[in-house]
């Protein structure tokens, strides 16, 4: 089907550029790609030096908000760009994050449009583009529009990034473009606002709401990105583990003590945590997600790749819990007592 559309040449990736390579996901994807013998060069770019060794990936320190990125793409004759630079954390100032996400993407896409060698673009987006609201359908497919479009934070950035990607697709119809809307990443190596939230000493939840959550395991996320890079799968796909966990259920499985808090005070609570305990605050989109939840339909990516995620939502969460050594709060102990 769509794999056969576009130009007939075997668009095998030979020179791959990975953005956001100094962060966890970028480094993992760079490692997965350099293990592929068909790929001649993997070039990783980021604004900060990598924290983990990158193997045969060539690291170039460049700010993708500057035209420097275009020089790298043209001089190295990059044919495939894997754009993983979406910053989702609330740790950096919002204005800086927005500039990195949106302006960085514009520069990168501009460079791709100019480059005669560019053939493929893989973009990491987020399921946050669907927003979270009480009027949402229970499950979002790729064709669904958000009921309430996200108005702030990285969710809005992701919407804008997807908009610019669509613009590029109109102007360069010869490019193979894959946009991946990931559910929240989780796993032993993931450090995100979500994992920091789950590690709070007492986890505040929104009083009277119990959202449905979905996770994607880091290994599955890396595998999807690798397949999208070395194979041809144009289109927009949701990526998440099978199944659903309720927030209360997830916290019980992790053995985390939690306390329901009215919605207005939860952000205050989070802000105090950030100021006095160095924890991340609650961004509005995280708060909405923790109130109304979100579930995405992953049938399209499973059909296109002929592949199912190795970890379902529950298994991915269990892997995270085991790796973090969470558990052991009174309710969990009571539960194990009852079992015995």
């Amino acid at each position: 089907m769509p794999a056969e559309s576009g130009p007939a040449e075997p668009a095998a990736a030979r020179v791959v550029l990975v953005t956001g390579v100094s962060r966890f996901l970028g480094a993992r994807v760079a490692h997965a790609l350099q293990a592929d013998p068909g790929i001649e060069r993997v070039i990783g770019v980021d604004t900060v030096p990598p924290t983990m060794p990158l193997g045969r990936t060539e690291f170039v320190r460049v700010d993708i908000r500057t035209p420097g990125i275009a020089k790298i793409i043209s001089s190295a004759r990059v044919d495939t760009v894997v754009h993983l630079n979406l910053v989702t954390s609330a740790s950096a100032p919002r204005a800086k994050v927005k500039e990195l996400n949106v302006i960085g993407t514009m520069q990168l896409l501009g460079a791709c449009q100019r480059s005669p060698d560019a053939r493929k673009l893989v973009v990491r987006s987020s399921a946050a583009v669907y927003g979270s609201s009480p009027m949402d359908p229970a499950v979002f497919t790729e064709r669904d529009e958000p009921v309430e479009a996200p108005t702030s934070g990285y969710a809005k950035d992701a919407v804008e990034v997807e908009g610019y990607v669509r613009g590029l697709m109109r102007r360069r119809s010869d490019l193979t473009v894959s946009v991946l809307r990931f559910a929240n990443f989780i796993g032993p190596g993931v450090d995100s606002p979500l994992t920091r939230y789950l590690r709070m000493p007492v986890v505040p939840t929104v009083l009277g709401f119990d959202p449905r959550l979905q996770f994607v395991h880091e290994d599955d996320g890396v595998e999807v990105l690798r397949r999208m890079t070395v194979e041809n799968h144009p289109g927009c796909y949701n990526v998440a583990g099978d199944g659903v966990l309720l927030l209360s259920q997830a916290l019980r499985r992790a053995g985390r003590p939690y306390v329901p808090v009215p919605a207005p005070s939860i952000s205050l609570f989070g802000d105090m945590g950030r100021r006095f305990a160095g924890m991340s605050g609650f961004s509005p989109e995280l708060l909405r997600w923790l109130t109304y939840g979100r579930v995405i339909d992953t049938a399209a990516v499973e059909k296109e790749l002929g592949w199912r995620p190795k970890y379902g939502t529950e298994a991915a969460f269990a892997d995270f819990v085991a790796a973090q050594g969470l558990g052991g709060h009174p309710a969990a102990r009571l539960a194990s007592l009852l079992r015995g």
Partner: protein
Amino acid sequence: MMHARHEDDEGAQVIRLASARHDGGEAGEPGGDAGAGPGPIERGIASGLAFLRRRLAGEYEVDEFGYDPDFNENILLPAARALYEHWFRVELEGVGNVPAEGGALIVANHSGTLPLDALMLSVGLHDHARRCVRLLGADLVYQVPVLAHLARKAGHTLACQADAARLLGKGELVGVFPEGFKGVGKPFADRYKLQRFGRGGFVGTALRAGVPIVPAAIVGAEEIYPKIGDLRPLARLLGLPYFPVTPTFPLLGPAGLVPLPSKWMIQFGEPMTLEEYAAEDADDPMTLFNVTDHVRENVQQMLYDTLLRRGPAFF
């Protein structure tokens, strides 16, 4: 004909008790069937503890709509069943018209100021038709704290085309109240008069999914909170579709929230297969209007019949 009354119908009663003990026997003691094993009290305690352990450890499954069968069967349904059997003394008729398996769309009238009819319909179908009905609720339900997640845990979801189609595609029994707020919040003087059936979206959904429509008439819910007035400014202030005044509410405060013990009957009509229409007819507004009217007349007729058979409202 099936009744929920103890003296009338033992069969239904036996099925229910067996199902209540089912998970206790499975999770609890071995060989409980031998008769010489633990008595009902011990078994009750064992299944209660097993339930508590599952809840505390989070060891239960929910589907993508948030339906939590474990919670529904052990907490929500037993609570509603007490009302169903002893307060409203619900009688079911025509349960055989509800398909034993596969997708179907139940279309019922809506009444009662507070939607207790939805609760009673799901108890009736669970206990006597062995089906879990997935109701489609207004978006207001999903904005109200507590109600939002209880509705999802009971298996219900938002009234929208996508959710209904998804549930029917999975072979679920879906229930819908096309009157919506116009029905549930109508004044007592208009009791048992069907309101407009929405925009007929439910017919389109059934046509596209190729499932039959099962009309249902719920008699008795009109009398539980006779709505004799509506405080509109207060409703607007609270963002509610209406703020009811009943003979007991808000006069008696929270005590006014106790529903009057009316006698209920729920009748299921012959399934309407819609075989004479094709799935493409779902895009033809005239077809939708015609079928909607047909379903509505059907439900109205069933309402009048059942109302006559019920006799006095409270005995």
